[in-house]
């Protein structure tokens, strides 16, 4: 490998501001758009008075429902929320756009938008999460079944020597990428051009074509750089169709940039979950049953399922496993996947319960996990494609000094600080999706790769360089990566921790084909090979898809295919104030072959920060009376600051999964955010004796009597 210490080629452009993001793309005569949002969570729009707004300086138009084209109906996914704004009088959620103001400048548009008056009818008290019926979800967000069962969990619990049952909750959270979603749209006849901040130009292109009843090749989506997404830009949210529709109606390019407040309603959120886990075990710590029930909040018109219980079917050996997932359709905007979805909230419940069981049994929590390591997938019986959880636990424990732990809660005090150590396993499902890329060799030996992928901060251009360099035996710096245009070979999207596998494998295939066409060997100078063949240029396109029998989201039907990790955390809890600070953490991961160690380490550090936010800071509460997210800004919604993050020792154990894809790589974008909350909550219990089952862990809870 030549990729040790490989730095990202996009770095200088980002640091100097040369990298162009969607909202910065210049467009002559573009109008600035501002949205008027519904201030009620349900009911119907009765009247919209835009007279004052239309008279405001610089205003070109105020568009209401009557002005916009009727769009085709599509489900979620690919839409973020299935009911698009300005298509009906019904209000689906607080913050839903009810009018678009177009003006010469953004300030003019926003001021005029504040002058639009709306009245509503039929508004009723909002229904909150916890007040609605649990229902079986029906949508493309349901991966696999909602209910899975093996053995008799009831019997397993009845015959267990020790059981624990507890209910855990996770909070509503918002992605809050630094770049708000934005779209610049214009029409060239029947051709639609979109510069948009998205996680997939392919999803945006296909979906926008369907909404506007256009052939996909009539829609071009450009997005080389995305300023963070974390799931908020994966599916198609209102800024895309509204900007395109406004551009069509006005006949001018339209630039629509979400405000920070709109990012809280118009780009999804991770919904609150309530999960109950029951574990039964023999006295020597072998599980006899595992039951995991979960319900999450969703919107009235969308069945977003958080898929929280999946990992309970593969993580631990148990003769009986029973899982069940439901949703509640309540008054709120639409949820969507957020780093880390599924296992992110789900593993907090399972790994907290495992810790509770360890205390009940008097068995060390690392040892308890080792004793329940399965040989095959506990639910399906399929072999593991690769599984190095034991190595992660052992190496992490060694590095952390876990053997020195005093097992009793409240037994490690230093001054005002109660010190606690906690451990949790991490695991993430392996989603895979098709990808393609073109590799072109010029006469000077320079290599150009073209792909629809967006650089979203994860370092994918460097990953492409690494794969090309490894395949052709060239220097990574010889490879130029062009990306983020639907005119390039399509890439499914920078989401779901899928890009290294899909794009990496496609690039490898293209590079191999180039070499084959030149009849060359790895490491031979490409310019020379090209000249020998009498060519001035050569290109090849590579594609990769999961095997044909793969399940939804590219999950394997043949193997139990996942990534793993172990999190060790040391907290200090102020005995008087209940404030929790994380002083030290060690994490170890097994996620296939690591293509670019520097970028991969960065991903896991960032993932850990996400887990920290879930554990201790992030909650976006819905007001019970107003039915709106209470605080739609980053002063009220707290994300971790550097001062929160500890001395973190994050690393990988050796792994290679050739069943996942030819590169042997797997996804790491989401794995790093999993397990952190449970490890911290378990450490808080060890420090204080207070078991916190509700995230985030607030000082008020730690202070309160159990």
């Amino acid at each position: 490998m030549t990729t040790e210490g490989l730095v990202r080629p996009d770095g200088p452009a980002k640091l100097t501001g040369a990298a162009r993001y969607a909202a910065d793309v210049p467009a002559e005569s573009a109008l600035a758009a501002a949205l008027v949002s519904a201030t009620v969570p349900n009911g119907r729009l009765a009247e919209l008075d835009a007279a004052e707004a239309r008279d405001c300086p610089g205003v070109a138009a105020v568009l209401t429902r009557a002005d916009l084209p009727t769009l085709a109906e599509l489900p979620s996914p690919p839409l973020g929320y299935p009911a698009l704004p300005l298509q009906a009088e019904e209000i689906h959620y607080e913050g839903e756009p009810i009018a678009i103001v177009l003006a010469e400048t953004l300030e003019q548009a926003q001021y005029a938008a504040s002058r639009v008056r709306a009245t509503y009818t039929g508004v009723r008290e909002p229904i909150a999460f916890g007040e609605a019926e649990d229902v079986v979800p029906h949508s493309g967000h349901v991966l696999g079944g909602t209910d899975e069962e093996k053995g008799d969990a009831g019997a397993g619990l009845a015959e267990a020597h020790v059981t624990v049952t507890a209910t855990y909750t996770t909070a509503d959270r918002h992605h809050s990428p630094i770049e708000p979603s934005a779209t610049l749209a214009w029409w060239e006849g029947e051709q639609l051009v979109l510069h948009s901040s998205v996680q997939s130009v392919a999803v945006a292109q296909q979906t926008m074509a369907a909404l506007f009843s256009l052939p996909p090749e009539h829609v071009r989506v450009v997005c080389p750089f995305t300023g963070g997404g974390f799931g908020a830009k994966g599916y198609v949210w209102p800024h895309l169709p509204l900007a395109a529709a406004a551009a069509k109606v006005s006949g001018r390019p339209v630039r629509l940039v979400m405000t920070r407040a709109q990012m809280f309603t118009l780009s999804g959120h991770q919904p609150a979950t309530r999960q109950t886990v029951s574990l039964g075990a023999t006295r020597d710590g072998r599980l006899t049953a595992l039951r995991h029930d979960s319900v999450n909040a969703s919107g009235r018109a969308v069945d977003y399922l958080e898929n929280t219980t999946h990992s309970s079917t593969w993580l631990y050996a148990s003769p009986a496993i029973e899982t069940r997932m439901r949703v509640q359709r309540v008054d709120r905007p639409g949820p969507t996947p957020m780093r880390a979805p599924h296992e992110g909230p789900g593993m907090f419940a399972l790994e907290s319960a495992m810790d509770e069981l360890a205390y009940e049994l008097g068995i060390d929590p690392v040892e308890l996990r080792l004793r329940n390591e399965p040989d095959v997938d506990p639910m399906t019986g399929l072999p593991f494609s690769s599984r190095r959880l034991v190595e992660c636990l052992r190496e992490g424990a060694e590095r952390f000094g876990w053997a020195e732990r005093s097992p009793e809660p409240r037994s490690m005090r230093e001054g005002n600080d109660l010190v606690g150590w906690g451990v949790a396993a991490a695991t993430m499902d392996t989603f895979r999706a098709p990808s393609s890329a073109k590799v072109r060799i010029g006469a000077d030996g320079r290599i150009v790769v073209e792909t629809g992928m967006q650089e979203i901060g994860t370092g994918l251009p460097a990953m492409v360089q690494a794969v090309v360099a490894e395949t052709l035996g060239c220097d990574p710096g010889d490879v130029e990566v062009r990306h983020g245009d639907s005119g390039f070979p399509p890439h499914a999207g920078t989401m779901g921790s899928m890009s290294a596998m899909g794009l990496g494998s496609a690039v490898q295939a293209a590079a191999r084909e180039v070499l084959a066409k030149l009849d060359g060997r790895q490491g031979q100078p490409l310019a020379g090979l090209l000249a020998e063949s009498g060519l001035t240029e050569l290109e090849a396109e590579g594609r990769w898809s999961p095997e044909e029998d793969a399940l939804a989201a590219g999950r394997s039907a043949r193997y139990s295919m996942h990534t793993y990790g172990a999190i060790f955390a040391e907290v200090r809890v102020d005995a008087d104030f209940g404030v929790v600070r994380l002083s030290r953490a060690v994490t170890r991961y097994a996620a296939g072959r690591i293509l670019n160690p520097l970028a991969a380490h960065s991903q896991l550090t960032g993932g850990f920060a996400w887990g920290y936010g879930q554990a201790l800071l992030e909650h976006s509460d819905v007001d019970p009376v107003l039915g709106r997210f209470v605080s739609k800004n980053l002063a009220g919604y707290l994300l971790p600051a550097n001062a929160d993050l500890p001395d973190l020792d994050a690393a990988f154990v050796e792994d290679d999964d050739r069943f996942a894809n030819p590169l042997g790589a797997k996804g790491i974008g989401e794995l790093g955010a999993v397990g952190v909350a449970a490890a911290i909550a378990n450490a808080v219990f060890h420090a204080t004796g207070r078991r916190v089952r509700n995230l985030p862990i607030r000082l008020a809870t730690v202070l309160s009597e159990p």
Partner: protein
Amino acid sequence: MRTFDYTRVRGLEETLAALGEPGTQPIAGGTELVNWLKEGIEEPRRLVDINRLPLRDVGFADGVLRIGALARMSDVAADEIVAARFPVLAQSLLLAASAQLRNMASIGGNLMQRTRCPYFRADTAVPCNKRAEGSGCSALHGDTGAAAIFGWSDRCVATHPSDLAVALAALDAVVVVRGERSERRIPASEFIRLPGDEPLRHNELRAGELITAVEVPGGAERSYYLKVRERASYEFAVVSVAAVVRAEGGTLTGVRLALGGVAHRPWRLTAAESALVGVDLGDTTALRSALAASFTEARPLAGNEYKVTLAQRAAVRAIQEAAA
């Protein structure tokens, strides 16, 4: 944001004349005013940039520390006299906001900050008597976790966000304000107003007046600012305590205490201050029981009872740290 005019002034008289015009607001660091403009909390017709006024000096003379209203938070915190003689003041500044904001934000502007109550800061109009009189108080029936436990009314349960104001209250500082006709001196502990029946009046500054300086008497070498917050930096206090103490041989002989995060004004614990005199610094139980004297009037809401416990524990810690 509504379009506004912008002018730059150099002299105090010129400034006061400009501020006399309706719809005119002064702008210094802009770290709070720009929020108001973007959130629609204020819609001034004209901004008067006062950054060139000669109000930046920090000096100690005749037993009084005088801080010009345009001194930046970071400059005051770094001032040697402030750091040595008024640690509580330097600490309150350094624990506030972020380095970037402290470099821009002025002392006068800091005291003019308005509540961070999420309903007051909402992107669209929600019931809030501090935004629209008579519209109601959403916080009273909504998220009360950050609300006041002292001095609230059924019109408003918000807290004020300034750390500096809490330190100044404990230091018996005075806010000096100038109007066109006269100068007024307002005790720092009373500058920010309790909501009462007039939640729209955030502080005692009258229309056309400008804060010119803050004056802090004496020295407070044994003082401490303790800020309890869930994020380790760049966050407003859940509860904070400014403690200024005198002690002889391990016994308290004088204490001044102000709390932040518990009311819409820095909350002086006057009853506790009396009860604490004569108490042994090492006797945590006695400190707690003396402090309880000031908490009989606490009125927590459903959801913020924890602040009553937290504030008393924080006060004990702050007293001990100040005396250490």
